[in-house]
């Protein structure tokens, strides 16, 4: 019988190789059809109207004038008179028409009036938010080495004593740090094209949750989930924001029903940014104390931020990030702002937590004049994930790739060339990444063709290629012999792509399904070869007696023994239920940045970035590296460029356009060096998710590098020229 476990490290035929994406050509040539590309015959276009004010009560809304515009087919209000709107851009009406021009003119004709209400959008100003009544406690937690101290006033005294002790013997830093709200900026906005056949709905939805969205259409439409097909072959970015059918998806389906024609409703760029996902901000005041070696003894912080109208900050459980010193107090406060609710953003909470806390650790290095590397190293015994040894090994690799020891200089003490100074910084991160539940159907046809079906999606990870490689490895076939079918809710259920769960999940189900299918085939082949099934193996396109190339059949000949009926089996993995050696949970990761800063302009340039990452067993080294390159670029964006900018009076999201929303271009990323850390100890853990972890540490690492270059801390991210110059001026 074929063995379900992964082959020993170094013996796999396909796993760990670097084949191109099997859909790479389709994507690069435009042959791949994304949701936005789906245009059924007789399709109508729909667009939404966003509320122009950040907080108001609707006094009039009338869509009937829109219906007078030639080419407009339908229009509907999405809110009633008297309703309160809590953010600018909230969808208040929608118009459906034959052409873009007709819809645009229809939108312009809608009568909409409102009474403005108080607006609050400043999430960095805690005192102002408190005064405006926009704050709420979001949890606190205290841990003291001396567990006998329980009364709050005694705890206050103990924190003061501990800090005083550090001040005497080591260093205390009182810092303020922050990172602003950013959006998901999916290149393909949220939306769908919906079409009905009788009472059956097909929703072409841009989604990272193919298997989980049919019901989200069915319930509000009052039809059975079995009457809904969600289809998505390719999705142009999700990053955690595309798990739902969304209210506008349901409206699209309703309008398709009402007009009797397919309707496409994709959000405009500005409405996309205003409605379809942001990452909460994080701001913090910290007192941190360390001994003279730089080992942190005490952490005392208050942090705040906004998740929009819901008003939640970064969860306090990840403060400080990865490290947990013996004495630690943290308090969190949420600010309720007039902005749409945040959505999960690649590694929720972690990038912000890393960016506002590991900078304080670096400031301890600055205060003591110690190499930042040594401060991180000496604090590894306090990491919360039992991975101190992995971090240590990864730090050594990263330092070598960065040439850290040679390049390092104390903060602000490096050589200057004209007005340009350079610096180094580092940060570490952690993530779970256990696989999601996944079911697949694997078929082996009598002609030797192999196909697999599952309701998964390719969020950018290369899901199709991963599946093909796992099945090919299992069946001893080349990757291109496997036909992979994903992207329909009618296929077997597979989890949503969130939490770095997809590669693990689809590998689990497909390894299991393909192994079971192979065993059925071996049972057919065994008598023909006068052997027992357990004596057979599938290698290099043959079924043969193990190690004996002379005693075997070609794959095609072997499959010919099936007669007229294909083999069909299901591979099934249920998270938390299925016992497994194929996958695991938990990663570390070390990143280092080298930057140059022009002190006269405040412009920061990335010189080099090193990312060392473990992920258990690596399925495809090229795809894994691609994930890390993308994550690092996204991290550079948050460190240096992107933020949501709001007008304080009207609550307008001022930079909700690609022209105004700053993002790095390729010329801004510098050299990125990726190292995949896969010693045997990691390989033997099986697959662990990779999508999120490498996006966590870049902002902190880059902030620390800028501080190392300047000798001045730029407290708030992104580090725009304005903030860099302001920090330099303040330090003078």
């Amino acid at each position: 019988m074929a063995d379900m476990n992964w082959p020993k490290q170094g013996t796999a035929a396909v796993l760990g190789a670097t084949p191109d994406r099997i859909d790479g050509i389709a994507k690069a040539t435009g042959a791949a059809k994304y949701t936005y590309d789906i245009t059924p015959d007789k399709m109508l276009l729909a667009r939404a109207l966003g509320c122009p004010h950040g907080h108001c009560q609707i006094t009039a809304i009338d869509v009937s004038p829109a219906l007078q515009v030639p080419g407009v087919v339908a229009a509907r209000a999405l809110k009633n008179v008297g309703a309160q709107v809590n953010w600018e851009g909230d969808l208040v009406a929608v118009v459906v028409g034959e052409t873009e021009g007709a819809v645009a003119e229809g939108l312009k004709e809608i009568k909409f009036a409102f009474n403005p209400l108080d607006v609050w959008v400043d999430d960095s100003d805690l005192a102002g938010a408190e005064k405006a009544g926009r704050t709420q406690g979001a949890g606190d937690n205290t841990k003291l080495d001396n567990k006998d101290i329980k009364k709050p006033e005694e705890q206050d005294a103990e924190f003061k004593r501990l800090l005083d002790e550090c001040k005497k013997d080591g260093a205390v830093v009182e810092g303020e740090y922050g990172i602003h709200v950013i959006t998901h900026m999916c290149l393909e906005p949220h939306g769908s094209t919906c079409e009905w056949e009788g009472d059956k709905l097909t929703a072409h939805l841009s989604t990272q949750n193919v298997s989980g969205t049919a019901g989200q259409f069915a319930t509000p439409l009052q039809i059975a989930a079995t009457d809904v097909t969600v289809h998505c072959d390719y999705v142009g970015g999700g990053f955690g924001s595309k798990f739902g059918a969304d209210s506008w998806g349901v409206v699209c389906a309703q309008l398709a029903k009402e007009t009797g024609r397919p309707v496409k409703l994709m959000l405009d760029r500005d409405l996309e940014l205003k409605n379809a996902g942001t990452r909460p901000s994080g701001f913090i005041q910290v007192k941190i104390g360390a001994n003279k070696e730089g080992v942190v003894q005490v952490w005392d912080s208050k942090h705040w931020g906004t998740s929009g109208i819901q008003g939640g900050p970064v969860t306090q459980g990840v403060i400080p990030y990865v490290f947990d010193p013996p004495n630690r107090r943290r308090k969190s406060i949420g600010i309720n702002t007039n902005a749409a609710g945040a959505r999960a953003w690649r590694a929720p909470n972690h990038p912000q937590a890393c960016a506002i806390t590991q900078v304080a650790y670096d400031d301890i290095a600055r205060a003591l004049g110690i190499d930042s590397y040594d401060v991180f190293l000496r604090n590894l015994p306090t990491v919360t994930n039992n991975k101190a040894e992995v971090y240590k090994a990864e730090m050594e690799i990263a330092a070598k790739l960065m040439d850290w020891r040679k390049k390092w200089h104390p903060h602000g003490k490096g050589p200057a060339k004209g007005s340009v100074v350079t610096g180094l910084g580092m940060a570490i991160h952690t993530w779970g990444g256990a696989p999601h539940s996944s079911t697949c159907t694997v078929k082996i046809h009598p002609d030797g063709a192999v196909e697999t079906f599952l309701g998964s999606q390719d969020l950018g990870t290369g899901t199709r290629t991963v599946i093909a490689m796992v099945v090919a490895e299992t069946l001893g076939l080349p990757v291109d012999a496997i036909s992979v079918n994903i992207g329909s809710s009618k296929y077997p259920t597979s989890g949503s792509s969130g939490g770095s769960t997809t590669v693990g999940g689809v590998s689990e189900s497909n390894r299991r399904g393909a192994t079971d299918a192979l065993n059925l085939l071996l049972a057919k082949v065994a008598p023909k070869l006068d052997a027992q099934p357990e004596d057979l193996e599938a290698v290099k396109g043959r079924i043969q007696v193990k190690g004996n190339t002379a005693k075997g059949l070609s794959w095609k000949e072997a499959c010919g023994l099936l007669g007229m009926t294909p083999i069909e089996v299901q591979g099934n993995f249920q998270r938390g239920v299925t016992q497994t050696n194929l996958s695991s949970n938990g990663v570390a990761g070390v990143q280092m940045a080298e930057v140059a800063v022009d002190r006269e302009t405040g412009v920061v340039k990335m010189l080099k970035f090193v990312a060392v990452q473990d992920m258990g067993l690596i399925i495809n080294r090229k795809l894994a590296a691609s994930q890390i390159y993308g994550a690092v670029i996204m991290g550079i964006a948050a460190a240096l460029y992107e933020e949501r900018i709001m007008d304080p009076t009207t609550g307008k999201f001022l930079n909700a356009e690609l022209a105004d929303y700053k993002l790095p271009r390729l010329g801004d990323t510098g050299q990125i060096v990726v190292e995949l850390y896969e010693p045997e100890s990691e390989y033997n853990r099986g697959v662990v998710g990779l999508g999120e972890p490498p996006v966590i540490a870049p902002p902190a690492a880059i902030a620390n590098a800028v501080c190392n270059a300047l000798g001045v801390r730029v407290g708030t991210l992104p580090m725009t020229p304005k903030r860099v110059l302001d920090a330099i001026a303040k330090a003078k």
Partner: protein
Amino acid sequence: MKNFEYAVPRTEAEALGLLSREWGETEILAGGTDLVGLMKKMIVTPDRVVNIKEIPTLRGVSETADGILIGAVTPLDEVLDSPLLDDFPAVKQAIRGISSIQLQAQGTIGGELCQRPQCWYYRNGGGLLADRGKLVASGDNRYHAIFNNSGPAKFVHPSRLAPALIALGAAVRVIGPKQDQESLVPLAEFYRVPRDDNQRETVLAPSQLVTHVYVPWLNLHSATYEVRHGEGPDYPLAAAAAALEISGGVVREARIVLGHVAPTPLVSGDARNALVGRSVDANTAESAGAAAVAHATPLSHNGYKAQLAKTAVKRAILLAAGLETGGF
């Protein structure tokens, strides 16, 4: 965008005949890199779009007796590639700064000079002057003007070529409103600060058209320096162009023009005065930069731009003189 009538004239005369006498009724389309976005957001909603890109006389770079003539619809990359402009490095540096190959290939020199402000209050539908400047004054003005901003207009002029061309003494040929009317307007006099929402950012009337840019041959040392947040096509935070007449190692005459700091490109007499009669080195460039921003009047969130403008002036002067800038 709303529906519109589309006209493609083949001659200057035809083009003039298609333009309305009222702002807003017709818009001129060249490369479209700015206009199309404005139309999609319904910031401008013309009844007729007049595409002038098919008028053959408006395209190309040629030499005249005393200068260079560039047709208004000549794409920026053609200007960049033209050897006739090799001795005007300020122009080529400004085009290179645009970075995007698509914008360089699609955008035209006339369109670049006539593009509309990027002010986010304007682009979000608040009107060109954003409630007579109140939205900008009380709002987020980190990218707005630090000079000439006491009136309602607080945007910065977006052109990246205008500072260089003004420094080089360029002019634009303007035709209309009447069929046989034409004039040569010095680019330094082409821009103006609008006082109300019915005015635009240039002296053009609605039915006038820029047909050519003329750059005189004055044997100047020139350079453009833009402070850019990144390497992408985003607009600079501040910029300056310098054109210097140098003989015997001494600056005899200078024109220093700042960009992205005022509602128009801004000629700095103070910077000129700090430079003329001296040789160019880091100190004189620094003092010219300081002089250029000495009278800046920043808004609530853009004080940092004075430092950027000062640095841009200093570095443009150093570059024009063939010296190192000491920065990126």
